[in-house]
């Protein structure tokens, strides 16, 4: 079990000694059962940190925000605080940090990874919880071993099988403990009797091409182009999104000619063709980078099963090249590296 007090103590110690600028973690939410992300910069606040199956968010996203703020501070000629930031990271979150490190977006010395184990289980899908009669009024969800969650409703505690509440990506998770960490709380559980990896995408692939196209046409038609999926994704850190003309980068050096000739590969209008282009481009740009934290799918207000697009490419990467995003931040990236044992000889 993760000793939350020990975690709080560790965070408080880091802040007390001034070893980190801040700790990004989870605290009790103010609305409903879910924990919410928080940033603390005083040792005293460490008491508010929590770790339970409602800590859904991939906090690596906040490292991206932090770097952007640091860069902005630098352009205003402020000397940035060079100390690292600590982050509470689940298995998937630590893989996200690994990709950011691999892509030189962060330096290893700029981040302290406080790893937390999912105890062989994972985090809940709030929709699955809400769908249960007792779930609507739950005030707490806790780990109860690998196979169950303890749900507190009023004064009553009920055990619910983990499989019934776990988020889909947690069911398919291959590494429920952060391999990349500076400190690890909880046990590393490698044996998991849950779904096989890529189960959902393999099932979806079973349909005919026409049926799949009809499904995706339906989903893309519903897309609002709110860009929540992009905003929550730790890998979507490009200063300018190539499939969105609203994020064009303007610097003092940007000429009128450049502004006039900007390419709009994809229009903003939420039509099937433009939305399909947006989602497919995003999926391809995440190939070999998506660590399947499932945040895009979780935040989608119209419930588009975005994980299927990303895990499809990760499955290809894994099966063709034995490549796993975030496995090791020193590994060469999938798309830019070539190995002699590549099965395709034409590339030589």
């Amino acid at each position, binding site marked *: 079990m993760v000793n939350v007090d020990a975690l709080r103590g560790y965070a408080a110690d880091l802040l007390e000694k001034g070893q980190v600028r801040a700790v990004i973690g989870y605290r009790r939410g103010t609305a409903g059962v879910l924990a919410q992300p928080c940033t603390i910069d005083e040792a005293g606040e460490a008491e508010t940190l929590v770790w339970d199956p409602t800590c859904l968010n991939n906090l690596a996203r906040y490292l991206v925000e932090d770097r952007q703020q640091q860069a902005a501070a630098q352009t205003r000629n402020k000397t940035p605080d060079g100390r690292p930031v600590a982050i509470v990271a689940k298995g998937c979150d630590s893989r996200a940090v690994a990709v950011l490190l691999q892509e030189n977006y962060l330096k290893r010395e700029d981040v302290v990874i406080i790893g937390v184990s999912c105890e062989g289980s994972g985090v809940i899908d709030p929709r699955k919880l809400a769908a249960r009669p007792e779930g609507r009024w739950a005030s707490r969800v806790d780990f109860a071993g690998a196979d169950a969650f303890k749900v507190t409703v009023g004064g009553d505690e009920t055990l619910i099988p983990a499989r019934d509440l776990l988020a889909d990506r947690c069911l398919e998770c291959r590494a429920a403990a952060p391999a990349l960490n500076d400190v690890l709380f909880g046990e590393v559980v490698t044996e998991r009797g849950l779904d096989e990896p890529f189960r959902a995408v393999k099932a979806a692939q079973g349909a005919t091409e026409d049926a799949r196209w009809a499904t995706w046409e339906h989903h893309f038609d519903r897309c609002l182009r709110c860009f929540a999926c992009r905003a929550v994704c730790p890998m979507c850190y490009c*200063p300018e999104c190539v499939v969105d003309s609203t994020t064009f980068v303007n610097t003092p050096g940007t000429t009128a000619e450049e502004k006039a000739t900007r390419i709009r590969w994809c229009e903003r209008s939420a039509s099937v063709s433009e939305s399909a282009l947006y989602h497919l481009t995003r999926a391809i740009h995440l190939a070999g980078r998506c660590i399947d934290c499932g945040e895009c799918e979780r935040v989608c207000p119209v419930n588009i099963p975005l994980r299927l697009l990303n895990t499809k490419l990760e499955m290809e990467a894994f099966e063709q090249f034995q490549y796993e995003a975030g496995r090791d931040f020193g590994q060469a990236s999938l798309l830019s590296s070539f190995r002699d044992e590549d099965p395709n000889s034409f590339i030589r």
Partner: protein
Amino acid sequence: MSKRTGVFVCHCGKNIAATVDVKKVARELAKDDGVVFCEDYVYMCSDPGQGAVIDAIKENDLDGMVISCCSPTLHEKTFRDASELGGLSGFRCEIANIREQCSWVHKDPDEATDKAIKISRAAVRRVQRNEPLDPIGVPVTRRALVVGGGIAGIQTALDLADAGLDVILVEKQSTIGGNMLKLSETFPTLDCSQCILSPKMVAVSKNPRIRLLTESEVESVSGFVGNFRVRIKKKAQYVDPELCKLCDDCSQVCPVAVPNEYDEGLTNRRAIFIPFAQAIPASFTLDEAACLGLKPVVCGKCEEVCEAGAIDFDKRPTVFEEEVGAIVVATGYDLYGMDKLGEYGAGRYADVLDGLQFERLCSASGATEGHILRPSDHKVPKEIVFIQCSGSRDPENHCAWCSKICCMYTAKHATLYKHHVPDGQAYVFYIDIRSGGKGYEEFVQRSMEKDGVIYLRGRVSRVYEQGGKLRVLGVDTLSGRNVEIAADMVVLAQAMEPSKGTAEIAKTLKIGLGKDGFLAEAHPKLKPVESVTAGIYLAGAAQGPKDIPETVAQASAAASKVIALLSKEELHHSPTVAKVRDPYCTGCAMCVDACPYEAIGLVGGKAAVNEVLCQGCGSCVGVCVRAAIDVKNVSQLQIHEMISAVLAA
């Protein structure tokens, strides 16, 4: 942005005009925005065609030009030069390929014409955003590297030095000379191989412009044509060639005996030895693997007896960097492994030899001092069988190719045998006799008629030992009979294959290999000595089986290519190179990994392109998810414009 574009549509005789309505293409393109001149002509590449281009630029004040014709690999340079003559930057001229990518691959005239219009229109949209770039001038290092010190490398080095260039000649073994130094006599004139080669070897050692590095290998190469940086590793040189007096005292006391690779394993040698009396550098050499004395010194006898004090066990390998402008690869051949021809008893019976072993038997510098004796019992073989195409021309089991020299050297072997053993009988099994070359056919005929060599057209199925004889079972397809010969010796004309390490040197130098493992030339007919990488040339059998005259000719050809290259003050490098759009770059370094030319590095957390190394291949553009890198004149905006033009109704 170009506003006055000219378009020229070529008929290419009927190559294009038979399928594509070139008049219609010209009519349609004339309607496009910014197109102020449009014309079709039967052969644009002809002198009048080019003249029309030059005139049109001047008369219409063109600031951009599209030629709709054949592939840019053929005439891009022609029209860019014409463009310059007309006063327009060559980089404002683009080719729309409506032949290879349109007329040759389509049948329907209407569809082909429509496609030709779209291809041309896309090129117009692209050229309108082309920058008038200036070629990047790069200084040239006037020095060459030759890899391999066989006859090919020696000839190249001598020719280069003769032209006043400094040459670094790198050889893996302890002497130059390669396989040719092992040969006895050479066809078709039967002059002694060492006698004709050693003057060239001496010339190498005496030439002040040639820096000879034996026992050395190329570790890595970076840079580009005109400016390569080469890392060379030289093995520890325990015997100082300057001090060695060739007295032979050291090998007398050496307790080690190992098979002598320079004698094809027919004799043994010491751990300290000299490969040949004519070795260059003229020095004994110490075989690190065989020597007992190195770390810790347990023997050291040679060091004690060496009066000259030439031996030093404390020597270490050295690695150093050199700058050169061009590289010639002459890494030669090996014979196809005897172990792969078990059906001929190779490797099993001492008296089954390969061609090079037989050369050593015939050679006065070999173990038998030129007497042909059986390795097993040192008796003179009275019946000898030569088997041609041993490993060659056998795509199912061995090498698919013809090794080219075996017909000739087998005839030579048989002739030499008869000269040594006049009362003996030589038999040759052959598939065909390939004796194309000056005096070659006459040589083969002489061996048959004058020396009474019996040629049997057919293959050998098996060789086995019985009663002290090698029984050769074969077939004579001309008489249709099975043949069985009780031979005293069998010589296999082994196939020629690329020398060991050819694949590694190809990888190190980033030059291609053919399917057969020989180094690939840039064009089989028109660029036979150029590798696929600019500034790297090929010479000798590393590029394909060849005999000595052909090797020498190719070596001189490679040298002349290098001389032409290095005679320029500076080289011009295409300016269509990658360019980073700084605000978009996040420094993920994917482009750094993807660049095959090591042209991109991170500077201040952003990608930075070395324009001289960049070849404009666009691999970086392909991997950049942020669209933060572009190739000049193939920018993403231009690609977008081209796609729009093609997709427009």
